[in-house]
């Protein structure tokens, strides 16, 4: 799955390399920057991957966490080991969270590497129009990777909860991915504006705030708080569901 994620920046870099650069203001954000600075391949890939591809892989990992064990039948052996139900949930969530970080880092690191291989690299232009040294720029990219990781934690908790609801892992995976897409659709409808601050997807694309000068950390904090609320809520629901669940598979 990480390999599939790594394909995104590679595809973008090769496409730009073969067909030439994009003009400013067209295509996904940062696309036009790539020919000038290969480091932006990672950023463009994140912009492309965050709305759909990343949530999809998170959905697979989180949705499979409990339901996958249940469908294999290994869940009952883990529980009689005894793993402890809460402990098992926590371990599964930590695994999903680590995957979130690995996924975001894969996109950023592979993007930066392929960009470095195919394009010139140089100082990183911020959204404000100023420039950062390559080192500073890479640090910012890492911070953005961290931002995207945090963004996916709420979804992971939702996936974990859904995974405790079923013994069919595909169902939990699909439901998680559908919720991620539905939340973004709701977030795009102005009629539902009252709902927007409550959506876990609301600040997914605000990671560009870290590419301003000065970097704006407010959205990082607000996003972390929002994701934390989702972790608490769906973590509690998952724990409630899982500790009272009859394991029949």
């Amino acid at each position, binding site marked *: 799955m990480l390999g599939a994620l790594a394909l995104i920046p590679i595809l973008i870099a090769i496409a730009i390399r073969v067909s030439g650069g994009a003009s400013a203001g067209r295509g996904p954000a940062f696309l036009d920057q790539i020919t000038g600075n290969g480091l932006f391949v990672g950023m463009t890939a994140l912009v492309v991957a965050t709305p759909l591809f990343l949530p999809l892989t998170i959905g697979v990992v989180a949705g499979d966490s409990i339901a996958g064990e249940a469908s*294999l039948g290994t869940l*009952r*052996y883990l529980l009689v080991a*005894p*793993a*402890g139900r809460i402990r098992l949930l926590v371990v599964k969530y930590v695994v999903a969270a680590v995957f979130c970080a690995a996924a975001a880092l894969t996109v950023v690191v592979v993007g930066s590497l392929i960009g470095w291989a195919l394009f010139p690299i140089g100082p990183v232009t911020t959204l404000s129009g100023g420039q950062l040294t390559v080192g500073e720029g890479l640090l910012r990219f890492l911070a953005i990777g961290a931002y995207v990781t945090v963004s996916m934690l709420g979804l992971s908790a939702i996936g974990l909860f859904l995974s405790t609801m079923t013994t069919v892992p595909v169902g939990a995976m699909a439901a998680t991915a559908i919720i991620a897409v539905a939340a973004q659709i709701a977030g795009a409808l102005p009629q539902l504006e009252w709902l927007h601050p409550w959506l876990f997807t609301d600040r997914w694309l605000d990671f560009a705030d870290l590419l301003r000068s000065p970097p704006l950390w407010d959205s990082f904090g607000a996003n972390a708080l929002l994701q934390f609320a989702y972790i608490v809520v769906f973590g509690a629901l998952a724990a409630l569901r899982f500790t009272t669940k009859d394991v029949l598979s």
Partner: protein
Amino acid sequence: MSAAVDSADLAIETHGLTKRFRTQVAVDGIDLAVPRGAVYGFLGPNGSGKTTTIRMLLGLVGATAGSARVLGDEMPRRLDAVLPRVGALVEGPAFSPYLSGEQNLRRFDAADRHAPSRTRDARVAAALDRVGLSHAARKKAHAYSLGMKQRLGLANALLMPRELLVLDEPTNGLDPQGTREVRALVRSLAADGTTVFVSSHLLAEVEQLCTHVGVMSAGRLVTQGTLEEFRSTGEERVEVLTADPGAARAVLVRLGLVVDGVAGTAGLETLLASAPRPAQGAGADDAALVTARLSGDSPAPDAIVAALVRDGVRVRGFAVRRTSLEQRFVELTGEGFDVVA
């Protein structure tokens, strides 16, 4: 029918244990008593509630009513203290297909907080060796045959020294050789003092392995006790093949036996049909079979024969017949039996 046993000596003890799934009652108020050191055969047709009971004992399923104590501690409240001392094989083995047998065992062992990681390598190797899977330790689990998986499941149950083994259908899918090996394994474990709770729908298995038996039928525990008690609670009958049925009956009545009659009931006929005939003389045509139920204060069988002969009854054949386990089982559960071993 079993003698009251002190709770402290029970490895498993339940009172009114009940599980209801929506409207269907899977387990209906059962009172299990499994003495420590016993090999307890948990017998019952498929769907009689055996697996649900085992899941309740292991804390996988919450009881609707009643209580359960395993190794002296209440389940599932003291699950963390109980389960490390229990090895289990529940409703068939299950593994991650893309991990090797060894990796699967390590994974389950790591899930047990009480299992020291320091000795993990040695314990995994020993468990694999014990079930004879050392040669296939590095093979992916999906490449295992059903029998190998069953043995790997047993190895998982043996990763730690256990006080109680709960084995749900342990010989399922094994060939005759594998079945013998598993039985030998269970016997050797029992010899070490481990309590074994083994569920089966195979009468022969229980008969060969167990010291104690409990029979489930439609969610109820219809009987439990030692294998001997279970056998003896079946009626003992004397069968007399004789040309003088009237005289024979008179003698038997005099000796205090309840005589069924010559014609016998339908059930009796079945019994006779399935039982081998006692020694038969040449002129058996005019002979009739007189059967009578033995009770506790009846004279010994040899005394009965002597009395018959003394009274001039021409005894052509004589047998003391105990109800077979199978017959008992059919009587108790009212169901047919899967006798394929």
